[in-house]
């Protein structure tokens, strides 16, 4: 077989390749067909001798192209196949098939079975007997069988959820090979070095003694595993492993709870050349505590599953101190060391800024599993009872001694009675030397720990030497006095450290032992076994019978020494199943990795069981090293054989098209195209149309995303010059009067003031931007419809941003209802209109430019309603008053526009109700209103100028 995974179904067709030189000759002799041209002066041309006439022959590259075309066709006809199925193992003797069926074989198990089946079938076709060995099965003697039987056996194999030890199989294999000296072997390996892969391969090759050994190994190392799930303070992290330090590979890790509900999925990735990756779940601690199973999505292997039990749960621990918290000096805080010691495995909640009782009540209400009281003396009766009830319900209370506790009266929360009176020993009077920590109680939770040598205690509280004291002691000092005592209270536990939580009484909080001790205690929380069954009680010994309290206290560690029966285990594919018959109870302290007896899974009761994982926490995967081994190595998963012929045919067709194009161009096709601008322009136009058609939907799609564009022309027109504006009501006559009126006013303003406004503009408040205009004149018609909510919002925004709207009901001659008119009410309904008042005589409107007494328009006698001013202060005598800013709303009924309106000849359009002087006054009103909207309360402040000048001594 060649190095390329390429085979030919009709190799004899390749013989046609010898025709290529003949084709080459033929092609050489056949130049491309010339273009034919009629040319009348041919006779003249015949007499011309061309200066240089290159021999007419096919250019070499065209020749090459055509030869390649011919070669392609020949290759295509030879029916090449990419990735041909691997050849069956050669040989005539019996065939030994070794199949790895550990967890690492699970992801591509079907392909492995297929590979083994293929090998067995082809061996059967050749009449060779077959022996099948599964490496994860128990070693047994190997017998030859017919291929049918071997396939039957193969079909019942399944991947096992542990790492197989292949050495165990070596004995029978060697025996078999010795008995069948003509046998050769096929090993379908999972590709992992674990399970003594290299040693097994070498031994196998040695046992074969030169006969062929075929190894099938997945080159990419399909197995992925998860190890070391850790519930760290901020997140839950888990390490993913792979055997091959290959390129970047993304994985997805899913966390689910005990019932299989997915809690979170995170993405992680193996970096280039890395064999591990870390996935971290950033979840609230409560959710993280619910995680019971972490798995690689799609890994389909027991190795890709990490199970979590109670021990990896993080607990929230409430921390209460009796001392006044001194935040400025954290090292002196009584809780500093406890918090530091607890933080790696629990979430510490400190009571900040609240009293002890409050904090305790809070923690109890929050149902925290552990509460630490650092030197808390007496508690209020109520809190005390709550705390006691909480302990009885399963809480773990950890108390630290201290001056307050020592001074407090005896309470039920301490596990032991503290010595009354001189119960505090300390100082040079009692002890010559500080006492070291000497030993842990053998049946206490600290039993597995080694007592540190460097812990000394200089002060402590002493327990009354009651009869049951020894059973409550978990740790003792050198002189036998208890350092840690504990007592079980129904479901809960009360633990007392006889020293302070800070370093005043001992250096225990500084030692690593402190962390271990706290961790052990916290581990007990929440995993309190239910009332012990009889068997366990019996196992716990006679102490449990006569002294229930002590038995309870010792119960934390006691069940762990026993074994836990499997409750749910994983199969090789990483799915839960009921424990197989081979599964045995696991030791209660857990197993670091799974074996055949203890497959990965949950052991013990659901709430307090342990989890056994397939791989130990620090494991790594390594690739099976087969270098230097006398074996033919092939991939397990044979790629799908792909016929190449269609592609070759396509390529040949492309070459043919290319060839025609070249011939066309050589025969002057380019000149033909170039000389026909119409054709060229047609082509270009066609391309352009195509492009445009392609681009149009994009444009059409892009358009709706755009925001409603501001009408730029309107904006420019409105802003390049200050303009008065009126609201177009839709009533032609009214709008005409508004326009003429504002034109008249504009004219007057230009004549009399420094303001020269532009031509007035009509605005539609529902469409146009209003903020360009300082003043908007709004004639109110009887039939005016209520504006839409959006329009109201725009008007409201305009008014709030400093604009002024002058509503004119134009009905002073009839009702003169002013703000009470139904049309105006309809308009303003839903608008946040400030409180209004009739413009008082001292309003700045009366002083803004002209001095006015009233505000007549076409009709006199109508008041001008403005935003109510704050009441004048007592004793203040100001000629003009103004609030902050400008009244956003002015309401009149005097038909100002009617009075202002001038025709194109500059003559007034309408008579006023009295005489022309009233028109003059109306103009003055208009000027004042415009000045007021533009200058605000400036004029009101101006009245102070004389006083200011006087003060300045001028």
């Amino acid at each position: 077989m060649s190095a390329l995974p390429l085979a030919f179904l009709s190799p004899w067709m390749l013989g046609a390749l010898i025709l290529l030189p003949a084709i080459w000759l033929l092609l050489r002799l056949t130049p491309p067909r010339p273009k034919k041209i009629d040319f009348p002066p041919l006779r003249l041309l015949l007499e011309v001798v061309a200066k240089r006439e290159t021999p007419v022959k096919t250019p070499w590259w065209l020749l090459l192209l055509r030869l390649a075309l011919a070669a392609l066709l020949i290759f295509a006809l030879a029916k090449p196949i990419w990735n041909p199925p691997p050849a069956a193992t050669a040989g005539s003797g019996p065939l030994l098939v070794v199949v790895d069926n550990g967890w690492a074989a699970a992801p591509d198990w079907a392909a492995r079975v297929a590979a083994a089946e293929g090998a067995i079938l082809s061996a059967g076709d050749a009449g060779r007997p077959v022996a099948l060995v599964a490496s994860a099965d128990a070693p047994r003697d190997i017998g030859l069988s017919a291929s049918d039987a071997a396939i039957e056996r193969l079909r019942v194999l399944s991947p096992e959820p542990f790492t197989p030890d292949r050495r165990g199989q070596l004995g029978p294999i060697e025996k078999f090979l010795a008995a069948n000296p003509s046998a050769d072997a096929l090993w379908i390996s999972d590709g992992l070095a674990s399970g003594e892969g290299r040693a097994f391969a070498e031994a196998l090759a040695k046992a074969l003694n030169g006969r062929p050994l075929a190894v099938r190994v997945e080159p990419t190392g399909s197995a992925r595993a998860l190890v070391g799930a850790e519930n760290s303070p901020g997140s839950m992290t888990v390490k993913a492993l792979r055997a091959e330090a290959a390129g970047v590979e993304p994985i997805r890790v899913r966390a689910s709870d005990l019932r299989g509900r997915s809690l979170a999925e995170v993405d992680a990735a193996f970096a280039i050349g890395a064999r591990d990756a870390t996935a971290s779940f950033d979840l609230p601690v409560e959710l993280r505590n619910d995680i019971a199973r972490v798995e690689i999505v799609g890994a389909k292997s027991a190795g890709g599953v990490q199970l979590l039990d109670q021990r990896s749960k993080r607990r929230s621990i409430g921390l209460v101190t009796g001392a006044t918290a001194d935040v400025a000096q954290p090292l002196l805080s009584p809780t500093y060391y406890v918090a530091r010691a607890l933080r790696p495995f629990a979430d510490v909640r400190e009571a900040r800024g609240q009293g002890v009782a409050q904090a305790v009540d809070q923690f109890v209400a929050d149902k925290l599993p552990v509460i630490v009281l650092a030197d808390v003396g007496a508690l209020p009766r109520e809190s005390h009872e709550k705390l006691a009830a909480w302990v009885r319900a399963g809480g773990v209370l950890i108390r630290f001694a201290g001056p307050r506790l020592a001074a407090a009266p005896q309470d039920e929360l301490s596990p032991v009675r503290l010595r009354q009176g001189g119960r505090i020993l300390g100082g040079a009077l009692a002890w010559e030397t500080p006492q070291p920590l000497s030993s842990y109680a053998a049946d206490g939770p600290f039993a597995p720990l080694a007592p540190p040598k460097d812990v000394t205690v200089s002060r402590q509280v002493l327990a009354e030497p009651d009869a049951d004291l020894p059973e409550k002691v978990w740790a003792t000092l050198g002189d036998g006095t208890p350092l840690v005592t504990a007592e079980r209270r129904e479901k809960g536990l009360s633990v007392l450290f006889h020293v302070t939580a800070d370093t005043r009484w001992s250096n225990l909080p500084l030692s690593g032992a402190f962390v271990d001790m706290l961790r052990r205690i916290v581990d007990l929380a929440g995993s309190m076994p239910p009332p012990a069954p009889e068997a366990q009680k019996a196992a716990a010994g006679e102490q449990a019978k006569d002294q229930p309290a002590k038995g309870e206290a010792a119960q934390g560690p006691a069940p762990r020494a026993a074994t836990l029966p499997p409750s749910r285990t994983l199969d090789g594919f990483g799915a839960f199943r009921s424990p197989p018959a081979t599964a045995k109870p696991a030791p209660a302290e857990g197993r670091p990795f799974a074996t055949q007896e203890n497959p990965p899974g949950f052991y013990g009761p659901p709430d307090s069981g342990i989890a056994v994982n397939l791989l130990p926490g620090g494991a790594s995967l390594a690739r099976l090293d087969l270098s230097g081994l006398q074996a033919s190595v092939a991939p397990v998963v044979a790629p799908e054989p792909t016929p190449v012929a269609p592609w070759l045919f396509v390529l040949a067709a492309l070459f043919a098209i290319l060839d025609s194009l070249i011939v066309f161009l050589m025969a002057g096709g380019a000149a033909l195209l170039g000389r026909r601008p119409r054709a060229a322009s047609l082509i270009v136009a066609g391309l352009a149309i195509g492009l445009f058609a392609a681009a149009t939907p994009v444009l059409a799609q892009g358009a709706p995303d755009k925001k409603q564009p501001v009408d730029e022309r309107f904006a420019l027109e409105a802003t390049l010059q200050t303009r008065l504006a009126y609201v177009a009501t839709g009533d032609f006559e009214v709008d005409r009067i508004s326009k003429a009126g504002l034109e008249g006013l504009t004219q007057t303003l230009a004549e009399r003031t420094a303001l020269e406004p532009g031509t007035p503009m009509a605005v539609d408040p529902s469409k146009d931007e209003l903020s360009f205009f300082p003043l908007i004149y709004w004639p109110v018609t009887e039939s005016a419809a209520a504006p839409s909510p959006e329009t109201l919002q725009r008007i409201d925004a305009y008014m709030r941003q400093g604009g002024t709207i002058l509503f004119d009901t134009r009905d002073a001659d009839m009702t003169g209802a002013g703000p009470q008119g139904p049309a105006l009410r309809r308009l303003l309904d839903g608008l946040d209109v400030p409180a209004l008042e009739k413009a008082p005589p001292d309003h700045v409107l009366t002083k803004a430019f002209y001095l006015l007494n009233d505000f007549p328009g076409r009709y006199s006698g109508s008041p001008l309603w403005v935003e109510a001013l704050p009441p004048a202060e007592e004793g203040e005598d100001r000629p003009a008053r103004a609030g902050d800013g400008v009244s956003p709303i002015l309401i009149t009924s005097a038909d100002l526009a009617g009075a202002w309106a001038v025709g194109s000849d500059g003559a007034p359009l309408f008579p006023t109700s009295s005489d022309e002087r009233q028109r003059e006054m109306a103009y003055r009103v208009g000027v004042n209103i415009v000045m007021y909207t533009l200058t605000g309360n400036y004029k009101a402040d101006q009245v102070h100028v004389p006083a200011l000048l006087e003060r300045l001594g001028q």
Partner: protein
Amino acid sequence: MAARAGLVDPQDAKITARHEEAALGLAAALPRLLVAARRASATVVHGLHGRRRSGVGENFWQFRRFTDGDPTTKIDWRRSARDEHVYIREQEWEAAHTVWLWIDRSRSMAYRSSLSEVSKLDRAVVLGLALADVLVRGGERVGLLGLTRPTASRLAIDKLAQSLAFAADDSSGLPPAEAPIARLAEAVLIGDLLAPEEEIAAAVANLAGRGGRGHMVMIVDPIEETFPFTGRTEFLDPDAPLKLVAGRAEDWRAGYEERLARHRAALAEIARRFGWTFTIHRTDRPATEPLLALHARLGEAER
């Protein structure tokens, strides 16, 4: 393998059939060409006479002092009575004379390249008929060499067109070897004049045998001048079963241009030798250009 020239195989000979059709199609195209010819001739105002010399005619030309030898019958007594001299009244010379037209009808004349709007034959016919029209209107007699007798009829060009339409095929590309034209007659040869120079010289010598004057108009398709061919090209002769395959046509351009120039120089030399004129007309130029030139030269030649 250099350029290969040779006889075309029967397969290729089919191409010439195309030209045959085009030549036969002349009859169908004649009405159109007649219109074009009339339009072209309308731009040339011949007047009844442009001879500007005294001679036999109806109209007064000038009074001249009597000299010895003048016939006394020519004395204009009315004029002579006005002073002491005797004057002779001279008439303008109005003698009509014969112009023989020859239009090449060979197959190569039906050639039209993509650079030109009309075929050479079309242009030759338009030019010939327009010239005939102008001449007839000017009182001359016009005939088609070898086809018709000269006529001065107003309908001359219709007759000429008819005889052209029904003329037998002629692929010689040369004027018929008939009797030489009369001394005062003029010949106008319109064709592509691609025949060998000696044959053309012989034909011209034959025509000019009696001292007749003439004009050669060489109708050229632009492509025959510019030779814009590139690449591998096979050239076919529409008249003769000849072909030439050029590997790189662009290599032939310089040689061809040089050869064409020599051919034209030879034609000009022939014309000069017999006192004829030689004009080259490209079909992408307007037909009125050679018409005006010819018309002017027809006058000059008699001086």
